[in-house]
């Protein structure tokens, strides 16, 4: 049995990648996702930049993850310069992370992944056939943008998040109005989306490959904004150990580096978070997981899309809780704390929609970056995707080339890869 598959510039993913399968006489010679996105050299750009600029620059690694990059960047800068943030800043940032997460999850699950379940090539035909759910998804997305616009000035490449706090704060009235929309609109819309996803669950391929799951973990809350590194194989690791966890290496078929920790590959993203932290989900999200038949641990990578939908419910519900806490004390006028108490190295991690993200900066005494490193979720997933394909292709080899190609495309899409992010380029050393 010979089989050659080459999907050039896979559609409905962020960035450019090709799927290449080569099977000769029943032997799988090659099963890989080639990353062909042009590299962008961000770490090189950061060298010599002032601490005010780090988050502005790293935001441009990826538009979809711009908020997550900013949060991680600000935390790394604050750790390096010893800048404490207020409880209010912390809560506002957590709301921003929730908004960005549910926005991205809705966009991926409904607009990029769902067309596969309904056998169409894009979301556009669904505007006629499934108008109500498209509208509900658009409303959720719109509301997530409103969260971004209200608290950070702009949904793509936020403006007012700076080291030490915010340059502009929302008013109590604006937050109350947002809360109202979340309760009256986002909760029903999310529930409706859940029902639609439940009705499509039969189209999710049945495939199992147990692997290592890595995510941010916090004992107090579902790990998103901050916490330690959690591996399903080896438990908790401090953030400062991130290089030991990620072990990046170059492979010739990708402009993005690969990663491995306790095994040949590991999984990051919604399913990893769910597997490691499902006990900490909000009550509504737990109901949704039960409704969608998702139980931890789950070893089907296609279920990542379902875990994303569970998180939509969590993020909406937890945002309401955080707004209530902020309104109980009222928003206090405060300036960002930008007086460094030290200069040195700072490392930080945040969960962005696609998985665990690391930023690591070293500052000199002028508050300028000497060395920078960013490790992106999609890069960490690439080895795991290749390993999935190696197990999947022989299992479905009898289904014919068209069906195999579709399942492979769906597999890669299930990871919601963010290819622009993954080729921002890593570990540039400067010798001067």
């Amino acid at each position, binding site marked *: 049995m010979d089989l050659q598959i080459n999907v050039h510039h896979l559609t409905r993913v962020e960035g450019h990648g090709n799927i290449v399968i080569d099977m000769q006489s029943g032997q799988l010679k090659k099963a890989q996702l080639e990353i062909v996105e042009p590299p962008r050299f961000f770490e090189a*750009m950061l060298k010599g930049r002032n601490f005010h600029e780090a988050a502005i620059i790293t935001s441009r690694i990826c538009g979809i993850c711009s908020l997550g990059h900013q949060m991680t960047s600000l935390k790394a800068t604050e750790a390096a310069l010893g800048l404490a943030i207020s409880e209010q800043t912390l809560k506002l940032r957590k709301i921003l992370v929730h908004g960005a997460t549910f926005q991205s999850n809705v966009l991926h699950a409904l607009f990029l992944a769902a067309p596969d379940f309904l056998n169409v090539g894009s979301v556009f035909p669904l505007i006629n056939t499934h108008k109500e759910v498209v509208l509900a998804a658009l409303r959720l997305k719109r509301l997530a943008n409103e969260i971004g616009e209200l608290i950070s000035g702009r949904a793509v490449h936020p403006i007012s998040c700076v080291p030490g706090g915010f340059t502009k704060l929302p008013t109590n009235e604006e937050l109350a109005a947002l809360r109202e929309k979340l309760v009256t609109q986002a909760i029903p819309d999310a529930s409706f989306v859940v029902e639609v996803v439940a009705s499509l669950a039969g189209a999710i391929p049945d495939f199992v490959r147990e692997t290592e799951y890595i995510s941010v973990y916090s004992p107090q809350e579902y790990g998103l904004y901050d916490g330690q590194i959690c591996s399903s194989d080896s438990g908790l690791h401090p953030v400062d150990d991130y290089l030991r966890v990620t072990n990046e290496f170059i492979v010739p078929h990708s402009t993005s580096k690969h990663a491995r920790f306790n095994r040949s590959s590991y999984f990051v993203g919604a399913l990893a978070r769910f597997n490691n932290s499902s006990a900490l989900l909000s009550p509504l999200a737990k109901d949704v997981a039960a409704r969608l038949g998702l139980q931890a641990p789950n070893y089907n990578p296609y279920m990542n899309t379902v875990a994303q939908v569970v998180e939509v419910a969590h993020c909406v519900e937890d945002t309401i809780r955080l707004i209530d806490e902020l309104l109980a004390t009222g928003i206090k006028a405060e300036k960002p704390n930008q007086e460094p108490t030290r200069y040195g190295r700072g490392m930080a991690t945040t969960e962005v929609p696609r998985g665990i993200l690391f930023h690591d900066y070293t500052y000199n005494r002028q508050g300028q970056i000497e060395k920078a490193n960013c490790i992106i979720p999609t890069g960490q997933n690439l080895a795991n995707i290749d390993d999935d394909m190696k197990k999947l292709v022989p299992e479905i080899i009898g289904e014919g080339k068209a069906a195999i190609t579709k399942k492979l495309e769906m597999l890669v899409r299930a990871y919601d890869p963010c290819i622009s992010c993954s080729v921002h380029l890593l570990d540039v050393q400067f010798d001067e």
Partner: protein
Amino acid sequence: MSKPKVAFFDFTSCEGCQLNKLNFENDFLDMLEHVDIVEFREAMDDKADEYDIAFIEGSISTPTCIERIHDIRRRAKVLVALGQCACSGGVNAMKNLHQPDWVREEVYGNEKYRFPSIPAQPVSAVVKVDYEVRGCPMSAPEYLHIFKSLVMGRKPEIFDHAVCVECKLKENECVLDKGMFCLGPVTRAGCEAICPGNGQYCTGCRGPISNLNLEGAVEMLREHGFSETEARKRLHLFSANELV
């Protein structure tokens, strides 16, 4: 009249401009009544042979990009550059300030020839660009204005005054006067001074005004307490190709 065929393409970019475009959810469905989206890789599988309007996001930064953009230009009646990466090279052009071969070698070692990279250039360095929507991300109101004008067959209006003008109209508190940095005096308007409006400084993401006096700008920033090196570095953030 049949609906205009519209296509979107992405080159070296963060895809933030495309995302920003999807963010007009309210206008989005209306828009679909007036145009046919025939190609949009991020959202759909279809591919088309020709387009009335092609929107291009991102910079030209590999030999393959050059081939692709020539091909798109041949098929497109009107070509619009979306966002600063496409209009000037944007943040990508910062890498042009470093030795390209050396940077690649640091990253990929002996494998560097597998990943060719050329200086990041604006789309207009390779093919004719009919209209530009500046900004990083591209300014939403400006995009809608150009989009609607083209669909209705009108000539869009182009801005060439400084962000400060818009900022003063909005009656924002001047961040430069508060001791912060700001590139509003030398940056091209069209964003409604959204950054100073949010208490943040203008990073110059829409590129310099056409009659920029670079030395004057550096001097102005020096008077506000920023060293010449710092001023130049920040001016280069989004405009390395235009100012170096």
